[in-house]
């Protein structure tokens, strides 16, 4: 199994497609209307006509309709979305679930933004245009596994002004991480951050644990058989602390639990919906 098929399986795209359709079709009075234009490819389809380029053909939709369909061009909207991924080692202490979820959510946010005519910036690289989605996907696939710590974050984050910033992180970000938002918090439209909580963090095993810090390698021993409540209290306090730190630097923080089933992409993409970042 390649990383491509593992990270972005067909089921993920089906779920993303369903999400996009929900957003387009919406409910009564809650519908996003396509704005016809010439700037970007839209989400609406129409039959191919004279003057359309073959590159504009939506082959997947054409295959479903048994006719050549192109996406109706729309006017560009959405401005600029900056997506930043916390790639410190604390992202994937136990397994790849949060790492994969983070990259999938990043792609979903980027794709939705691109579909709405925005340009996106992922980890400092800017993407726009018709090939942007696949380029974003390639860049996410090429990302090295999480490593290091989040102290280098402040040096890396330098978004252009008047952007929307979307940050995916974990519950373990330190004080330096949050303080790095302070210099440009005023210059951005909105800074949204999502803390992804893995199921293992919510429900650690009832056992005597030798707890190792994924970033520093430090080791402590905790008895979660007899003092399980202490863990939950400490974890909740940590989340509350993150909320407080985020609020102090003007970041809107959302705490989201990753679904137990790693293949439940619909549940995963609901995190994007709840964040309102796109």
């Amino acid at each position, binding site marked *: 199994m390649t990383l491509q098929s593992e990270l972005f399986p067909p089921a993920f795209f089906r779920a993303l497609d369903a999400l996009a359709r929900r957003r387009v079709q919406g409910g009564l009075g809650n519908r996003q209307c396509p704005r016809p234009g010439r700037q970007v490819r839209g989400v609406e389809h129409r039959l191919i006509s004279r003057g359309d380029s073959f590159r504009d053909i939506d082959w997947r939709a054409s295959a479903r309709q048994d006719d050549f369909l192109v996406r109706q061009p729309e006017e560009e909207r959405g401005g600029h979305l900056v997506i930043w991924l916390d790639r410190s080692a*604390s*992202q994937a*202490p*136990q397994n790849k679930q949060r790492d994969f979820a983070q990259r999938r959510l990043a792609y979903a946010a980027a794709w939705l933004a691109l579909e709405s005519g925005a340009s996106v910036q992922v980890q400092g690289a800017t993407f726009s245009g018709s090939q942007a989605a696949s380029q974003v996907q390639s860049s996410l696939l090429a990302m090295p596994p999480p490593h290091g710590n989040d102290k280098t974050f402040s040096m890396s984050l330098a978004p252009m002004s008047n952007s929307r910033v979307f940050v995916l992180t*974990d*519950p*373990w970000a*330190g004080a330096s991480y949050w303080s790095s938002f302070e210099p440009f918090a005023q210059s951005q439209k909105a800074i949204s951050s999502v803390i992804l909580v893995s199921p293992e*963090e919510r429900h*650690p*095993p009832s*056992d*005597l*644990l*030798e*707890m*190792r*810090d*994924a*970033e*520093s390698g*430090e*080791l*402590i*021993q*905790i*008895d979660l*058989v*007899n*003092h399980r409540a*202490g*863990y939950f209290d*400490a*974890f909740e*306090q*940590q989340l509350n602390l993150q909320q407080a730190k985020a609020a102090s630097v003007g970041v809107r923080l959302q705490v989201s639990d990753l679904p137990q089933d790693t293949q439940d992409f619909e549940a995963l993409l609901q995190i994007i919906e709840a964040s309102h970042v796109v």
Partner: protein
Amino acid sequence: MWFDSPFSFFALLGLIPWFYWTSRATRPREWLVGSIEPFLHLAAKHGNARRRWPLSAWLGALGWVAIATSLAGPRAASGPPLQIQGNQAEGVMRQAFDEGAGRFVQIVSTQPQPISLPPRVEWQIIPGWANDFADRAAILSVRPASAGRWAIHWAKVGSSPDPFFISLLDHDVRVASSEKQGIVYLPHPDKDDIRSSDLLFEIKRSNGKPWQSAWSTYSLPLPLFLLPHADKNYEWRDALEAALPGSRANIFGGLTMHGTPILTIRTDLQRVKAPAGLAIAQPTPQAPEGFLTADLIFDGDPFEQCAPMDAAAQVAKEVRAWMATTPDGNRDPSDWWPVTEPAVWPENIWPDPDAWPTQANAFLLAGFLLFGAAFVLMHRGR
């Protein structure tokens, strides 16, 4: 404590994988987290102390030992409640006579010691695997009764309907099979019928085959209490044989309950003239517990105080003088037999084989309880 199946102790080898497994099962699980900082206070509170062998390992090991002991140990329900080995019984009864009939009986059995065992009954448990006999009746004690009779205390176990007989030379008494124990009386045999110095009490089956034999010297032995290690002192024996011509002196080392060497003089019944008892205590004048009070006491050991010849002469002189004062040797044994209280045997001395829990079952139960507790502790991470 005897064990019926000592090979069951090989089960203790299972302790090795048990300790290995519990050590692994209770080993802390490595758990990677993004940061340990929020949990530092928990670690500080509950410490990092972890024993190499947790409490559950030791508790389970105790249970393991208890179960192995239970499997190896004596089990009351595994056989008849009383078995007496023939050879052992001979020794038992001889010892009983030598030290006073009815006063000291040794029972050899595969079974646990009965409840309310009378004093002076020593219960010796032998392992079942070493027991290849199946006697189900025993002479527990013999003592002279009045009117020239012997009172023979017997006990029978099991539900065998076969009657049996208790005999003394040519005299038999049929014992009812329905009774568990009792006392039968046999007449004192004519001394002329006895060619040796021994009497033979026997338990016979109805077909006449002996079941158990109990030998004893008929004539009262003359116990001579010597100093420790004096059973090697043949000077005393020679002196006594010289003093009582025709008698045979035998030294038995460590025959008494207290391990005191005893020197007995076996005499031919037809020649003995009233050997009511001779005891020479040294260094204390009092006879040890369980023996006759000394009728003749030497003040000190002549063989330590005089030259050997002088000492032998002194012994012979005093013994002869004492013999001259004793009554006729043809008196009834009940006259000179040690006056002791007859052994009091409770009505039911045998344990109920169906009683629960027996010692083995208790060990088994304790073992499983300990195992259960070990698993509970292990589940709680200890």
